[in-house]
């Protein structure tokens, strides 16, 4: 099998990215309704998008497959700054390396790789976080420091790390779900 992604595989990559991205935006919108659920965006998105990812990597088990998806997701999440894109590429790279260790065909490696991948779903949260910064500055103008400090306490510094880890765990669960879907459905339906 040639190492580079063929034209056909690039087209499949784009199609899967479309499904993935629609799911991603849907999850961001659904979880965005309340602050509590929005904190779970990475965790929940990781779970929900798992089957898509696992089908994708099983259809195109090659180097570069994951990175393209990571780049496209990163672009979608990067409306407000470049950090989400960079972080997505980083997560994508980690996923590539991990899956690569299993030659892109080992279910366990792929699940682990997806765990790293899905850490990038903190992206939408980062957006809001940056927005919050902007707010706080404008709110200080109106309400004064103390008030702002109150709000700031709702989002402690360490929360980002916690969210990333929650994304990772969501990814593991999603990956396992994806493998089950492969076993019970996709392989038997003949699409892989």
């Amino acid at each position, binding site marked *: 099998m040639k190492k580079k992604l063929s034209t056909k595989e690039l087209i499949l990559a784009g199609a899967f990215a479309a499904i993935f991205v629609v799911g991603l935006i849907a999850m961001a919108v659904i979880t965005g309704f309340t602050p509590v659920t929005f904190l779970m965006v990475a965790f929940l998105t990781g779970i929900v998008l798992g089957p898509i990812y696992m089908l994708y990597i099983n259809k195109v088990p090659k180097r570069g497959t994951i990175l393209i998806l990571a780049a496209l997701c990163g672009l979608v999440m990067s409306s407000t700054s470049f950090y989400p894109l960079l972080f997505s590429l980083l997560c994508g790279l980690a996923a590539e390396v991990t899956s690569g260790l299993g030659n892109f065909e080992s279910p366990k490696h792929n699940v682990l790789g997806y765990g790293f991948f899905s850490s990038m779903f903190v992206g939408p949260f980062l957006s809001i976080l940056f927005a919050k910064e902007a707010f706080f500055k404008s709110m200080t103008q109106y309400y004064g420091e103390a008030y702002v400090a109150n709000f700031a306490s709702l989002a402690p510094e360490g929360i980002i790390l916690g969210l990333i880890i929650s994304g990772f765990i969501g990814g593991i669960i999603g990956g396992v779900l994806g493998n089950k879907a492969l076993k*019970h459905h996709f392989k*038997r*339906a*003949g699409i892989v």
Partner: protein
Amino acid sequence: MIRLNNISVAYEGGQDNPSHQNALDNISLTIEKGECIVLCGKSGCGKTTITRLLNGLIPMFYPAGLQGEVMLMGKSTRDMTIREISQFVGSVFQNPKSQIFNVDTTGELAFGCENQGLSRDAIHHRLKQSVQDFSLEKLINRDIFRLSGGEKQRIACGSIYAMNPDIYVLDEPSSNLDLQSIGQLHNILKQLKSQGKTIIISEHRLHYLKELATRYIFLEDGKILNEYRPAELEAVSEADKRKMGLRTQDFDQIDSKRVAKQPLKEVAMDFQQLLVRRNKQTILKMANLQIRKNTVLAIVGENGVGKSCLIACVMGFLNYQGDILLNGSKKNKQARQAESFLVMQDVNSQLFARTVFDEVLLGVKSPDLKKAHAILDQLGLSALSQRHPASLSGGQKQRLAIASAIYGQKKYLFFDEPTSGLDRQSMEAFCQLILENREVVDVTVIITHDLELILGCADEVLLLNRDLSIDLYPLDEAGIKKTRTLFINLYEKQLQKEGLYV
């Protein structure tokens, strides 16, 4: 020009359905320049496989074991990439929706030329030619997602025409088209033939190819059984055509099996002052219409005239003014959906379970296993009960959908173009199923362009016209004649237009 030498092709099947038999078994075929070859036969006979060999999709896109040589203009396809082959072979596929790469029509027309690397001026010139020769004036600069299936297919043809290939390969291009669009397709093929292009079409529907074909190649189980000159095929009796799995060539020849007229039953579906509007325009209007119990109703009309809307209204997916009474009462959306079942053209979007058996049981509380087994048996699906639903063939998926509907005790059964891609046997099997279950459900409604289907199992026809007038009539002697004439006229009208589109 084209030569297939001792070709054998073996596909790799899915996990649930490993097929080890050859899709094509040692066939040889020669096609001369300017010929119009029609590949015909039952589903799975190998005609699609041949088309894939001609455009290089096998073995480069669909991994399959290929033995033998495919020679195109003296060169073997093994030595060329799909792109190189595309320089002189243009391919048109079944499904208009999934062929389109762009979101706008002009971009789509230019797509092939762009891939060839032509200069902007050359592309402009080619596009002008395409638009002129295929009468696409009204379709340029538009949003592809808003076009009808027939319009999309014409854009696809225009896109390939702009690439100026010598050979055209079409795989069941009429499958998803209504009669008007099939007429337009005929015109396009006529144009191509007059320009000396070589055409290879794999098809079930033969009626629109009558004056175009130079040779018919009949395949069965991967082997070429017979070759026919046009006059020879027309001489084949309708009964023999049936055995071969071929659809009719002549609308007047269709045999209509009439079942004994039943006593008038109570009204099952009642439309009162129905009005559907979209964007300030009325798209559907039915003042007063009744459908009686145990009727099989065929809904016909041009694409876009509101047939699918009607079903959506009954099932509660579309808002409307007026009343729809089911068995005498106005039911809310949930109740209606609980009692209805729609079998869509693309059955894949409605298969949910892991096995065929589970699929039948789906959605019904307190499962009755014995009953489910009995129903599967009745529909000939018992052997498949542990298979994954998506691994079934098209006809089998349809039967599965019907099984689910019967098990769920649905009262109203709706079908949207159920036989578009089916061969004769499958179409007749479908008619059989509908007739067998006519008394089991309250009303069966079928949207279709397939005259053979209508004459094979429908009791009444509802014709929806573009001017919002409707016509409901029974399929008695007069009704049958009326329907035949209608269809023949619809089709012939297109042929007379000679490329002018209104």
